[in-house]
C-alpha cells in the first residue's frame, strides 16, 4: 500500500511507452486508453490519500538505500493534495479532448499527443513527491520539454514561435536552478531536502554568499518557469496559441506545480528564519502586487479570448505567490487553496472558450454578441468560472481570497487586503463585459440547444459544479489544505 504514490508515476510512464506501440493496432483508440489510464491514476491518488489519513506522513526509499546515500520520496499532505489536483484535472481534460483534438491536431499526431501528455503527468506527479534536489531538477526538465512540445504539436506559425520562445526562456530557468543546486552541494555535500534543512544553518554561518546566491538563483529560475511578474513574457503567446486541452493543463497545473516546488525548497531547505531575515518575502510581495495589477490591466485590453485568459493566469499566479510570501498559516492556506480553485476555474474557462471556438470558430471577444442564446450550457459554465474568478461569495474563488485577506491581516500588512479588493474589481472589468455581451447583446431571442458532443459538455459541467460546491461547502477541502500548510509552517 505504501508503494502507491510511486506506482502512480510508473503507471503514467508505462502508458507513455506503450502508446506508440499500441497505436499500430487497427482498432486502438488512443483516447479511450488515455481516459482509462487517467481514471486509474485518479483512483490510485485517492487511495493513497486515504492511506495517508490512516498512517500519517511517511517516507519511501526506492532501491532500499537508507538516508545519507539513498533517494527519498516524502509522501506528506502537500504531495497528496497536489497529486489529487493534478490527476483530477488531467482526467477531465482527457475526456474533453476526445472530441476536440481531431479539429486541432492532425490525425497522425494524436497518439504522440497522448504520449507527451502522459510524460507530462508523470513528471508533474514526480515533482509533487520528490524530496531530493536532483530528482526535482530531472522532473523539472521533463515537464518543461513536454510542455513545450504540447504547445508546438499544433503546426501553425504562432504555435511554433510561442513554443521556441517558451523553450529558450525555460532553459534559462533550468540552467539557473542547476547552478543553484551546485552552489548548495558545494558547501554542504548533501542533496536531500530534509538533511539539508538541518545542515544549512552551519553552512550559512561558514559560507553566507553561496547560500544567498543559491536562494536568488532558485527564485529567479523557478520564477521564469512559473511566470512571476517581470518574467512572464512567454506565457500569453504559449497559452493562447496551444490546442485547448494543452492550454487548460498548462495554465491550470504546470505553472502551479513550479510554485509549490519553489515553496517546498524555500520552506524545507532554507527554513523560515533565513527566508524572513533577508527581505525576500517583501520582494516577493512587491513583485506579486505588480503582477496582479499588470496582469489584470493588460488583460483588459485584449481582443482574443484565449489571450485574455492567459493574461488572467499571470495575475492569478501572483495570488499564490502572495499567499506564500505572507509567512503566516492563514496566508499559506489561502495560497494553497487557490492552487486547486484556480486550476478548476481556469480549466473550465479554457474548456468553455475552446468549445466556443469548436462550434463557431469565433476567437475575438467583440464577435461574441448573443452567443449565450446559441450555446447556453457553455456560457453558463463560463459565467460560473468568471464569477468565481472575481470572487463573488457562493463560489470557490471567494473562499481562497477570504483566507488570503485574513492571512494579510495576520501578518500585519493590511495594505494587501486593499490589493486583493482592488484586483477583484479589475477582474470584474474584463470578465463581466463578456457575460453581458453574450447574454444581452444583439442576436438575442430564444435559447437553442448547444449541440456539442457530450464528451465536451460533461467535463465543463463537472468542473463548474465543483466550483459551486466548494464555494458553498468548503470544509473538507480546507481541512486537507490546513494539514498541508502545517507541514511547512510548523
Amino acid at each position, binding site marked *: 500500500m505504501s508503494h502507491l504514490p510511486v506506482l502512480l508515476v510508473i503507471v503514467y510512464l*508505462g502508458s507513455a*511507452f506503450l502508446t506508440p*506501440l499500441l497505436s499500430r493496432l487497427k482498432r486502438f483508440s488512443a483516447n479511450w486508453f488515455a481516459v482509462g489510464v487517467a481514471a486509474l491514476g485518479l483512483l490510485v491518488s485517492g487511495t493513497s490519500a486515504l492511506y495517508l489519513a490512516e498512517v500519517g506522513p511517511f517516507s519511501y526509499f526506492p*532501491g*532500499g538505500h537508507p538516508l545519507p546515500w539513498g533517494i527519498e520520496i516524502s509522501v506528506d499532505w502537500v504531495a497528496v493534495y497536489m497529486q489529487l489536483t493534478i490527476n483530477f484535472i488531467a482526467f477531465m481534460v482527457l475526456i474533453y479532448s476526445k472530441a476536440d483534438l481531431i479539429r486541432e491536431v492532425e490525425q497522425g499526431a494524436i497518439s504522440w499527443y497522448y504520449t507527451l501528455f502522459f510524460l507530462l503527468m508523470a513528471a508533474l506527479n514526480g515533482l509533487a513527491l520528490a524530496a531530493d534536489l536532483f530528482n526535482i531538477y530531472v522532473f523539472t526538465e521533463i515537464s518543461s520539454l513536454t510542455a513545450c512540445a504540447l504547445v508546438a504539436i499544433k503546426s501553425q506559425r504562432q504555435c511554433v514561435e510561442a513554443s521556441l520562445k517558451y523553450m529558450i526562456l525555460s532553459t534559462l530557468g533550468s540552467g539557473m536552478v542547476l547552478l543553484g543546486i551546485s552552489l548548495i552541494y558545494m558547501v554542504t555535500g548533501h542533496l536531500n531536502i530534509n538533511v539539508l534543512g538541518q545542515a544549512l544553518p552551519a553552512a550559512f554561518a561558514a559560507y553566507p554568499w553561496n547560500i544567498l546566491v543559491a536562494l536568488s538563483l532558485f527564485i529567479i529560475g523557478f520564477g521564469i518557469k512559473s511566470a512571476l511578474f517581470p518574467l512572464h513574457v512567454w506565457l500569453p503567446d504559449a497559452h493562447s496559441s496551444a490546442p485547448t486541452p494543452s492550454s487548460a493543463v498548462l495554465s491550470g497545473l504546470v505553472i502551479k506545480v513550479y510554485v509549490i516546488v519553489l515553496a517546498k525548497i524555500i520552506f524545507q531547505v532554507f527554513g523560515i528564519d533565513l527566508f524572513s531575515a533577508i527581505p525576500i518575502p517583501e520582494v516577493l510581495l512587491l513583485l506579486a502586487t505588480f503582477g496582479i495589477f499588470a496582469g489584470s490591466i493588460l488583460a483588459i485590453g485584449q481582443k482574443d479570448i484565449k489571450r485574455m485568459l492567459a493574461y488572467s493566469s499571470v495575475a492569478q499566479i501572483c495570488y499564490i505567490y502572495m499567499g506564500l510570501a505572507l509567512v503566516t498559516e492563514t496566508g499559506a492556506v489561502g495560497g494553497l487553496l487557490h492552487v486547486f480553485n484556480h486550476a478548476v476555474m481556469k480549466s473550465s474557462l479554457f474548456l468553455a472558450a475552446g468549445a466556443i471556438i469548436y462550434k463557431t470558430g469565433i476567437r475575438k471577444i467583440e464577435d461574441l454578441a448573443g452567443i449565450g442564446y446559441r450555446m447556453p450550457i457553455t456560457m453558463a459554465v463560463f459565467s460560473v468560472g468568471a464569477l468565481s474568478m472575481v470572487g463573488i461569495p457562493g463560489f470557490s474563488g471567494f473562499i481562497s481570497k477570504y483566507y488570503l485577506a485574513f492571512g494579510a491581516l495576520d501578518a500585519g500588512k493590511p495594505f494587501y487586503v486593499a490589493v486583493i479588493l482592488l484586483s477583484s474589481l479589475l477582474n470584474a472589468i474584463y470578465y463581466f463585459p463578456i457575460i453581458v455581451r453574450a447574454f444581452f447583446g444583439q442576436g438575442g431571442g430564444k435559447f437553442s440547444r448547444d449541440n456539442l458532443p457530450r464528451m465536451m459538455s460533461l467535463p465543463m459541467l463537472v468542473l463548474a459544479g465543483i466550483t459551486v460546491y466548494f464555494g458553498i461547502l468548503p470544509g473538507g477541502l480546507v481541512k486537507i489544505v490546513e494539514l498541508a500548510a502545517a507541514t511547512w509552517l510548523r
Partner: protein
Amino acid sequence: MQDMVLQTVAKLLIPFIQLYGMYVIFHGHISPGGGFAGGAIVASSYILYALAHDVGAGFKQFPRLVAKWLESLGGLIFLLVGLVGIIRGVQFLTNIPEWLGQVGSIFSAGIIPLLTVAIGMKVCSTIVTLFYNLMEEDHD
C-alpha cells in the same frame, strides 16, 4: 556524400565502432561509461553509415518500426525490472542480493547490467531517429 573512399573506410570501421559501443554498455557497472555513452557510440556507427551512403540506405539498416520498438521496449524493461522489487516485497528498484557476484567480474551487481542494456537500447534508437529525421529534411 557518395564518395568511394568514404564508403570503403566506413565499411571497415563500423564493426569496430559497434563492438566498442557494446563493450562500453556491457561493462557499465565495472568501468566508466554505461548506458548513455555506450548507446551514443553505437548510434554514431549508424550515423556514419547514413552519412557515407544515402539516408534511404540508412533507413533500410535501421527501419522506423525497429526504432519505435526499441525505444518502447527499453523504457518498459526498465520499469518491469524495477517492479520486480515491489513484487518481492521491498521497495521499487531494489537490487537482488543473490545476484550480487564478486566486485569486478562481469556477472555481478544484480539488476544493474539489465538496466544499463535497456538504457543503451533506448539512447541508441533515440539518437539514430533524431539524426535520420533531421537529415531527411534536406531531401524533401
